[in-house]
């Protein structure tokens, strides 16, 4: 008799979801599905609004990564206006994007995932959280808190607000950078870099302790999508899209923002509000690809900063013959990206040009359709708007990192459930691993369904006939 296990809610992620695990006649895992159970619909209710409002409106999608939405939205508006923004504005947008990446990656690694890594996947769930880490590993927890605060303060210093700043605007940024703010950030960069390097030095030797998780946490061949610069270097703000395969061979390169829809399709499944983007030339669902830190390190040819370049070499050594495939290594990739971001911020702030007072281009709408793409902490973020003659939004499409990863997350939970879940005897540690593979992607369901809330999780166990036989809930 087939059975189904449900994990509802999924914890330590952003948003609401549940997982169902279907068992076969022998009580073994047949398939697992992630269901996103929340909906907001920003694409719909922004219709009729002036395009200039889109950065502020869409930034409200999320309290964790509003900067990412501000950037992609402002870039889509730049495209509608057909302007080239001032060089200093582009540099400042890059700096604040790195502040966002640093704070978000620190949140994911230290606050949400370090409990699994430090306390163990099978440890008592009552203590498997940031407080438990703080009690046993105060130095690491302190570092995590400091690093996240540093990223948040970067955003606050640049824009006067930590969450939902109105500083990134169509055409550039609202105000120039002062020397005082630049110097404040520069003064704290060495400590931030020291923390990032120390954490990498701790993490790299212990990765081998998680071989079972590495082998089964969404460890399968897939394509990867991400932005790269003109020279193939990692890119978070501009550049073009590249798709590589599991051997890290380029499938498609130099995809311009406005051509994204030629390559990215969006399928809809009946059991989830989260759409399932796929690589169109391959079709659905075979066109599965991944985005985010792991993908960015797989699609790029180089990092372009000294320390991050060395870290990339170590990272690539995990899988010298091709792309690093296990989603467990999203954690590692995040740490490498933090080092890179800190180095790039130092470079950008060292340029005298960044203090220029010329930070905004002005124009009315000069195109009826605009596309903006940037790399959010969780992956590629696409904003696509169409406007009428009055500049009012008549259609909007937002493709969010977590959406890109939907197919991969579903395949990943099936893989990990098959490896760890025993349908005859549910173990908390096994269910935690099913959640943990999702946490590798650090999904933000508020963004990807444009929804609100935290992400509790529910696991349901169904038999062959579809009857619910067991449930495990949290949140």
């Amino acid at each position, binding site marked *: 008799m087939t059975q189904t296990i449900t994990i509802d809610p999924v*914890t330590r992620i*952003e948003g609401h979801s549940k997982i169902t695990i279907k068992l076969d006649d022998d009580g073994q895992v047949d398939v697992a599905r992630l269901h996103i159970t929340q909906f907001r619909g920003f694409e719909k209710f922004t219709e009729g609004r002036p395009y200039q409002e889109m950065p502020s409106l869409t930034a409200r999608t999320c309290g964790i990564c509003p900067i990412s939405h501000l950037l992609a939205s402002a870039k889509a508006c730049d495209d509608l206006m057909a302007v080239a923004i001032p060089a200093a504005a582009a540099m400042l947008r890059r700096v604040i994007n790195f502040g966002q990446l640093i704070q978000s990656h620190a949140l994911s690694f230290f606050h949400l995932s370090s409990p699994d890594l430090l306390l163990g996947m099978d440890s008592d769930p009552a203590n498997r959280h940031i*407080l438990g880490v703080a009690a046993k590993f*105060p130095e690491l927890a302190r570092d995590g*808190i400091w690093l996240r*605060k540093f990223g*948040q303060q970067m955003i606050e210093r640049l824009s006067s607000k930590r969450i939902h700043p109105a500083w990134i605007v169509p055409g550039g940024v609202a105000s120039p950078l002062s020397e005082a703010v630049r110097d404040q950030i520069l003064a704290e960069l060495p400590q931030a870099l020291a923390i990032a390097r120390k954490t990498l030095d701790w993490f790299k030797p212990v990765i081998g302790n998680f071989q079972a998780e590495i082998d089964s946490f969404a460890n399968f061949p897939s394509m990867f999508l991400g932005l790269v610069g003109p020279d193939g270097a990692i890119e978070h703000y501009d550049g073009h899209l590249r798709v590589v395969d599991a051997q890290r061979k380029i499938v498609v390169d130099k995809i311009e923002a406005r051509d994204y829809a030629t390559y990215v399709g969006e399928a809809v499944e009946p059991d989830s509000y989260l759409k399932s983007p796929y690589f169109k030339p391959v079709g659905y669902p075979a066109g599965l690809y991944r985005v985010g830190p792991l993908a960015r390190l797989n699609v790029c040819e180089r990092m372009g900063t000294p320390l991050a370049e060395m870290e990339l070499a170590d990272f690539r050594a995990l899988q010298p013959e091709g792309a690093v495939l296990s989603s467990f290594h999203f954690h590692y990739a995040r740490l490498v990206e933090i080092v890179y971001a800190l180095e790039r911020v130092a470079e950008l702030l060292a340029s005298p040009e960044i203090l220029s007072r010329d930070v905004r281009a002005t124009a009315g709408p000069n195109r009826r359709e605009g596309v903006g793409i940037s790399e959010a902490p969780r992956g590629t973020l696409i904003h696509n708007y169409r406007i009428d003659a009055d500049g009012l939004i008549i259609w909007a499409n937002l493709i969010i990192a977590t959406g890109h990863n939907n197919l991969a997350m579903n395949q990943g939970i099936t893989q990990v459930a098959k490896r760890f879940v025993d349908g005859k005897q549910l173990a908390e540690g096994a269910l935690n691993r099913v959640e943990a593979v999702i946490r590798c992607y650090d999904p933000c369901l508020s963004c990807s369904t444009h929804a609100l809330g935290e992400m509790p999780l529910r696991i349901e166990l169904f038999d062959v006939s579809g009857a619910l036989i067991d449930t495990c809930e949290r949140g």
Partner: protein
Amino acid sequence: MGQRLSTVPPMTLVIGYGNDLRSDDAAGVRAAGLLAEHHPEHRTIVVRQLTPELAADIAMADRVVFLDAYPAEKDGASLRVERVREDGEAHESALAHHCDPASLLRLSRYLFGTAPEAWVVGIPAFSFDIGETTSPATSHWIDEAVGLIEGSAFFSGLRKKGKLSRARHSGEGRNPEKRPEAE
């Protein structure tokens, strides 16, 4: 060398939290804003939700007042004042992106070796609809909360500023030079 007596008065950290787009949910934020205007010698932070990073700020304070809204019925509503126990059970939210006051005190203790005395002042809230102003009833309780804190030992020696107009609870008329630290 003789003993040096500190002339620095104890520092109280006021943390007001809530969603300022959800009417009365902003009660703690509004009350903290008023205290920041009138008592700039103390530190005030307003946030939408409590996050682990606040542990570092808490560790530097001599005492902490958390200001929050709680859903109440109009009949029998009152301020809820509770001492925060750092050994209290960790709230489920500690697993996610935000914390509760007890978890923050424990974080402060674990990470920085100190946890100041702390209190939560719960302000009755009656409407959580979308809106940027508080209801008249909650505005009254915001005044009461501010008066209670000003009259308490936390702010002893400070001149009580008296009742404040409700219009200011919606954020109007603020002195921008004395705003609380905000997200």
